[in-house]
């Protein structure tokens, strides 16, 4: 089941089961440490929601995010890592020689070292209708929910890689995809831009922001405002997919480890945080590139640094 043994003191607790956390789990469990991978949701992280990854080496034809992460998880399990799903760490405390991880209901787990690999999550628009219609037309995951929009109209909000990748994916199902972007040019990689401009199902609302999501029991339309002219207009749609950037999953760390002004975890070059014995890796860290390949490298380093820390204790 989902509960881990509350009394056992693991060598390493890894928070988050995305690419960074799972790689750390592979390295640490292969080094014969007792490892618990603690995940507030389900394994895979953000990348598991991505339809196709084309820039992770070893997969010349690309691979789906879910498939890649399933392989990572299998590899970690093969070396004996324990997986504790649906456990949200709300605080990290200390009791003598070990850390205590507590969830909001007071359940606890113990570990001698902690690796933070909690990643980041989609930023919300914070407009009327967004929260009410989440799961009823508003989505942050095209690969999860796209199939419910067969022959329907959808809107994608954003202009970066995620937005354009997912807009392209949605053209498999939707009758039309309107990309609403606050600027007059996309930020996405050129290769994705070219595909989007060539796709006849995709149209663009440039210089525009969504100011409300409207409907009765489900989404009927979005209201957008042109940021240059100030004009507002309505776009009829059944779905709204939001890809406007990310926030780090670090609110539980405030006051525990040092964070940068955007909330990302600051580490030294061994990936140790401001607290000895707590390490961080992947998207949650104040690094310069949020990519699976970077997360994998950092996951390996964090595990080795945690191992070195444990050896010095012993």
């Amino acid at each position, binding site marked *: *089941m989902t509960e881990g043994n509350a009394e056992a003191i693991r060598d390493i607790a890894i928070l988050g089961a995305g690419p960074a956390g799972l790689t750390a789990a592979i390295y640490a469990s292969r080094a014969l440490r007792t490892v618990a991978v603690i995940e507030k949701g*389900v394994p895979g992280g953000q990348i598991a929601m991505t339809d196709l990854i084309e820039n992770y080496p070893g997969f010349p034809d690309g691979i789906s995010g879910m498939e890649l992460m399933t392989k990572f998880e299998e590899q970690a399990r093969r070396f004996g890592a324990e997986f504790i799903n*649906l456990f949200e760490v709300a605080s990290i405390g200390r009791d003598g020689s070990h850390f205590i991880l507590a969830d909001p209901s007071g359940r606890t787990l113990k570990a001698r070292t902690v690796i933070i690999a909690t990643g980041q999550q989609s930023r919300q628009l914070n407009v009327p209708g967004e929260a009410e219609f989440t799961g*009823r037309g508003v989505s942050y995951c095209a690969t999860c*929910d796209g199939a*419910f929009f067969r022959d329907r109209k959808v809107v994608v909000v954003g202009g970066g890689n995620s937005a354009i990748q997912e807009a392209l994916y949605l053209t498999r199902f939707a009758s039309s995809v309107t990309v609403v972007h606050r600027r007059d040019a996309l930020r996405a990689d050129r290769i994705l831009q070219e595909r989007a401009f060539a796709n006849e199902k995709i149209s663009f609302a440039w210089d525009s922001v969504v100011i409300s999501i409207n409907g009765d029991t489900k989404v009927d339309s979005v209201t957008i405002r042109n940021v240059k002219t100030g004009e507002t207009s309505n776009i009829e749609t059944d779905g709204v997919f939001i890809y406007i950037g990310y926030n780090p999953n670090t609110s539980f760390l405030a006051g525990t480890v040092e964070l940068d002004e955007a909330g990302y975890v600051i580490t030294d070059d061994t990936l140790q945080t401001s607290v000895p014995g707590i390490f961080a890796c992947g998207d949650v860290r104040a690094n310069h590139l949020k990519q699976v390949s970077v997360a994998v490298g950092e996951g390996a380093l964090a595990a080795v640094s945690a191992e070195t820390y444990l050896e010095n204790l012993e």
Partner: protein
Amino acid sequence: MAGNTVELTSANWEAEVVNSETPVLVDFWAAWCGPCRVMAPVMEELATRYAGTIKVGKLNVDEYPEIAGRFGVMSIPTFIYFQNGQPVRQIIGAMPLERLVHELGL
């Protein structure tokens, strides 16, 4: 996987949900949905713990899209709680057993 949950179909929907004497929690799921897989043991646990009080049914949205569509399911997992055949509560997304129990008011 059989356990205590009921596999729902368009053929047994009327009998198992609409005309059910006990309340029914329906788990709308699909094989390709990772969070749904994680919720499968949670559903089994719920069905075991509340056996006789509520019934837990599973509906595959790929096989019965018309039923999922009828209840406005646009994201999975979605859980809909039926009392006297009427949907009274809709919960979206994977969550631990205790939170699901709390949301259902059990």
